[in-house]
């Protein structure tokens, strides 16, 4: 294998930064969910690459758990977005302000 560990870690850092940019800039609820997905995938890539280079199997096991949790998170997040969309007729998170005092 020609690639070293640091190549994968650099790609993972780039994806993390793109995700944080999306969370900071976007106000569209669905886009923010996209950004969260990108961050979760960066973490998974990091886990798998360290598991390959150690080498140890628990990194892959943890990644499988993480993917399953992310699936549950997306299902609940999209349901919340649908509820908020029906209430406010909008997906701009600046408009969701019924919890604001």
């Amino acid at each position: 294998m020609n690639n070293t560990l640091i190549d994968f870690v650099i790609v993972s850092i780039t994806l993390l930064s793109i995700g944080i940019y999306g969370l900071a800039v976007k106000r569209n609820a669905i886009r923010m969910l996209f950004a969260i997905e990108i961050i979760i995938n960066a973490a998974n890539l990091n886990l798998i690459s360290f598991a390959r280079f150690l080498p140890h199997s628990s990194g892959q096991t943890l990644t499988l758990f993480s993917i399953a949790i992310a699936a549950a998170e997306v299902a609940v997040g999209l349901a919340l977005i649908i509820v908020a969309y029906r209430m406010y007729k909008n997906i701009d998170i600046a408009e969701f302000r019924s919890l604001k005092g």
Partner: protein
Amino acid sequence: MVDISFLVISVLTVVCAIASLELRSLIYGSIALMGSLLGIAFFFLLLDAPFVAMFQVAVYVGSIAVLILFTVMLVKRELIFTKIEDPKRKYIGVGLMLILIVGLGSVIMDSGLKSISTHSAPIDFNEIGEDFLTYYWPALVIMALILSSSITGALVLARRENIENEQHTN
């Protein structure tokens, strides 16, 4: 030195991730997100983890992307095709991104990770199955409970009727 396949996959992943956030239409954005997730699955193949790559394709590219596409289609047309963001925060966000990439990248570059490469045999996926059934079995049971409860919760949330009326009376 990196492989050509590594370069192609990393460019695909990063460009698709940026496109999913920056494309004007949410539908094309979710398709670009699918491309980015597929790129991560190729990375897993490159890292000799075919089982996790298969799981990634089945769960992410298969189900989550379809779920996101259907949710996007439930939203009004004007909202799909307009960008909602603050122009002032955009510069701050780009600055934050560059600071993170340069800062974390330089820290990682200076660390000892640079010299780590491996010639050992890849992990057999039988080991993952053994892990699941011996050491991690309580976590597996809790995971099943979490998944079923979250699906039930999502269904209950999305099926609530008269939500507009509740809002008006409040």
